[in-house]
């Protein structure tokens, strides 16, 4: 229950909301004194600057402190006001608890302007800046490498993971999320989200436009955990996913795409795909060679680009120009199907002519499906599914769409059920980094196929490691529009091994309880945990990103271990150590190595 203590003399307020303990000093402005395990903070909650003049602390007047308790939630509000020069400001700070481990912090402000002419107002939040400076503060996606915070988690969607601060033992943790779903700085919260991820957060001031009515300036969700930062991620994940309608992913008809671990990019114009003497596509050869990678689950046929635009032929007409026109595709599709391989063709949104529309392309697609029996449509350059195409799935329930870019917005994530995780910047010395893709963990039901088309040599090695670390499939693309960049025999073997593991342990890799970047016992090791909600068995992907071999304890395990086995990566000596009823995973791991370990627990 809430404990509310407020005295006029002390002008201080201490209260608990769920798992959140706060102490505020209201003598001058509003000072945060304590926040759970973070004590002696003594920072103002906010500072207001009007036309470059700071409103002095003694100008603030606390009007009211109130609490409101309902069966569903508890609200504590602090209303304040201040006169400054000829303007009058009113504000309200509220803490709203609906769940014991998620508390909303809301900051609202209004202004009555002299002569009704608004002024430039900048706001700063010293208490967050102070948290940001704390040695145990992690920006979204960050970990500690022993010396500094480094980014090891990435995401490319319009959900913004929380920053996290933990106690020295890493057990009690608080997460701070500035909820937003927009792609650019459309509101104050996104500004905060972006700013807190940057190096210069202490300088960040948000510009606000104030009217006579209260404006929401900050909507910060505070997540509380006594089980480390992993729990903060789980809370954020659970809270975020609640907004989504993910029925389409669990539709029984059409989710073969979830097992599309390896997609082959079949570039038509090259020796890999085309027999120049026989004037035919080498589909059987491609399927045969695909076995070196563990077998393709789908093939994406590609012949429109870079040929489109030579004349007025559109993307559909180019299929007619293939040998025996549509029949070529039909024949290839039949061969693929006889090997249990799905077949995609691409859609080019940039090739919609003035007399065409998405609806007309949907009609072409429908006709094409009927004539050729293709299984999917690849959305070139896109990260969204047009409504016109969505209708196709109602007629052909098993038909799938896969986009080149990972969908970013809610509607697109709900409707577009697979995509590439494409990384790499064309020929700008791009280095494939091995890190955690948060999208993969937030929406494990959305299959991603990793690709970095221009990567060669050690970058291709890193790409495979990155796929293994994230437990995701790949795109096997070797002929990049006429530039032949094949995988080596060793790389093919590694991909084959990965595919077999993804297939064998599918229910864990795509389980709903997977967490990225769990706490490890080595500062140079990062680890993702894959599991379903039963939790009896987990897979740990472990990466030594340091430059030295690591030998010793790597993970503290959550439960008693029954069985353990390394399932991917160069064989290393792994052991389980039991000490005082706690189980540890030990390994002897070379620098830059990724391994996957499967552990069965006693429940």
């Amino acid at each position, binding site marked *: 229950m809430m404990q509310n203590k407020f005295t006029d003399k002390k002008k201080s307020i201490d209260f608990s909301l769920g798992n959140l303990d706060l102490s505020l000093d209201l003598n001058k402005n509003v000072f945060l004194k304590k926040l759970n395990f973070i004590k002696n903070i003594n920072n103002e909650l906010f500072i207001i600057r009007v036309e470059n003049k700071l409103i002095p602390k003694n100008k603030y007047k606390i009007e009211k402190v109130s609490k409101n308790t309902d069966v569903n939630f508890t609200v504590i509000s602090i209303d304040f006001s201040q006169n400054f020069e000829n303007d009058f400001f009113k504000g309200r700070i509220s803490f709203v608890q609906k769940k014991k481990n998620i508390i909303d912090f809301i900051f609202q402000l209004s202004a009555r302007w002299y002569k009704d002419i608004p002024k430039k107002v900048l706001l700063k939040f010293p208490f967050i800046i102070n948290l940001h400076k704390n040695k145990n503060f992690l920006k979204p996606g960050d970990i500690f490498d022993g010396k500094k915070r480094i980014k090891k988690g990435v995401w490319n969607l319009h959900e913004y993971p929380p920053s996290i601060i933990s106690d020295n033992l890493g057990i009690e943790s608080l997460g701070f999320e500035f909820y937003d779903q927009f792609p650019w700085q459309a509101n104050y919260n996104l500004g905060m989200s972006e700013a807190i991820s940057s190096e210069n957060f202490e300088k960040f001031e948000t510009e606000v436009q104030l009217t006579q009515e209260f404006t929401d300036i900050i909507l910060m969700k505070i997540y509380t955990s006594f089980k480390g930062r992993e729990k903060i991620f789980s809370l954020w994940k659970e809270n975020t996913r609640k907004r989504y309608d993910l029925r389409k992913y669990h539709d029984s008809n059409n989710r073969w795409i979830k097992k599309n671990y390896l997609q082959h990019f079949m570039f038509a114009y090259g020796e890999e795909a085309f027999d120049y003497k026989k004037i035919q596509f080498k589909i059987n050869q491609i399927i045969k060679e695909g076995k070196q990678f563990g077998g393709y689950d789908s093939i994406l046929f590609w012949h429109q680009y*870079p040929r489109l635009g030579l*004349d007025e032929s559109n993307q559909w007409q180019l299929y007619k*120009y*293939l040998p025996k026109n549509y029949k070529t595709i039909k024949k290839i599709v039949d061969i693929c199907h006889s090997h249990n391989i799905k077949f995609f063709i691409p859609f080019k949104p940039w090739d919609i002519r003035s007399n065409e529309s998405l609806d007309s392309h949907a009609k072409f697609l429908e006709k094409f499906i009927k004539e050729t029996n293709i299984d999917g449509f690849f959305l070139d350059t896109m990260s969204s599914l047009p409504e016109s195409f969505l209708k196709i799935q109602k007629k052909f329930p098993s038909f799938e769409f896969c986009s080149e870019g990972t969908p970013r917005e809610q509607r697109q994530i709900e409707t577009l059920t697979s995509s590439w995780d494409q990384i790499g910047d064309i020929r700008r010395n791009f280095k494939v980094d091995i890190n955690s893709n948060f999208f993969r963990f937030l929406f494990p039901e959305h299959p991603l196929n990793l690709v970095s088309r221009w990567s060669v040599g050690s970058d291709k090695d890193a790409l495979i490691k990155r796929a293994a670390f994230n437990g995701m499939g790949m795109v096997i693309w070797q002929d990049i529009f006429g530039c032949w960049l094949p995988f080596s025999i060793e790389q093919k073997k590694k991909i084959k091994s990965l595919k077999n593991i993804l297939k064998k342990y599918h229910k864990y890799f795509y389980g709903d309880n997977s967490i990225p970047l769990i706490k490890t016992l080595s500062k140079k090791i990062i680890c993702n945990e894959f599991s379903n909600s039963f939790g009896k068995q987990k897979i740990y992907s472990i990466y030594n990103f340091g430059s030295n071999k690591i030998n010793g304890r790597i993970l503290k395990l959550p439960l008693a271990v029954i069985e353990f086995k390394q399932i991917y990566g160069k064989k290393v000596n792994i052991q389980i150590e039991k000490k005082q009823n706690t189980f540890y995973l030990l390994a002897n791991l070379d620098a830059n190595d990724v391994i996957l370990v499967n552990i069965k627990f006693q429940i």
Partner: protein
Amino acid sequence: MKSFINNKIFIESNEYTYRVEHLTLEGTCSTDHGPRNVKIKNLLVDKYPVTNQQYSFFLKKTGYQPRDSQRFLEHKLNKKKINLPVVFVSQNDAIAYAKWVGGRLPTDEEWQYIAAGPKYLDWPWGNKFNPSLCNHDSNKLESVNAHRKGESWCGCADMAGNCWEWTAGIHNDGNHQFALLRGGSYFYAPDHWHVGGGARKNNYHWKLQILNEGMNRAATLGFRCVYDAK
């Protein structure tokens, strides 16, 4: 419609520095773009691209039928089109014609010299683009003699715009076969992902990746012939 004679123009042997400016959006064009010294032997060159009338005559005289006729002369030859450049011809179709008339397709290097000449002009008519001197960004082919002021230094017409022109040879980088096209065409596709269209500069070639003949023919793709001369 009145037909006209496709004159031949003499090009005197010379050397020049070949240099092509060709950036692909993605992928590569695996040919030596220079700069390198190139020797051009004495040549006769068609003043105009081969026309529908000329190609019809060839068909009539030889009974030529391509092994794979997909899209072959898809535009359908008729009397109204006699002076338009023949299109929907593959490189093989072009070579067959050239052989019959005792000529061949120009090499990529020869084509550039015929267009740019010893003064290395950017466009057939000079160094500044002038869309009124060629068929650029329109919706149809024009007669090969429609832009007399757009002729090159040696008098060759229609070297920029109207239709792309095949050059000789299939290039092979070990994994891909491709041919080089020259001059650009009337068609100017709207997006940067499309083939860069319209009239193109003298020192530009486009890499056409070879596939089956149906894909090797296009509404914008024709040719002209050269003839070895003493």
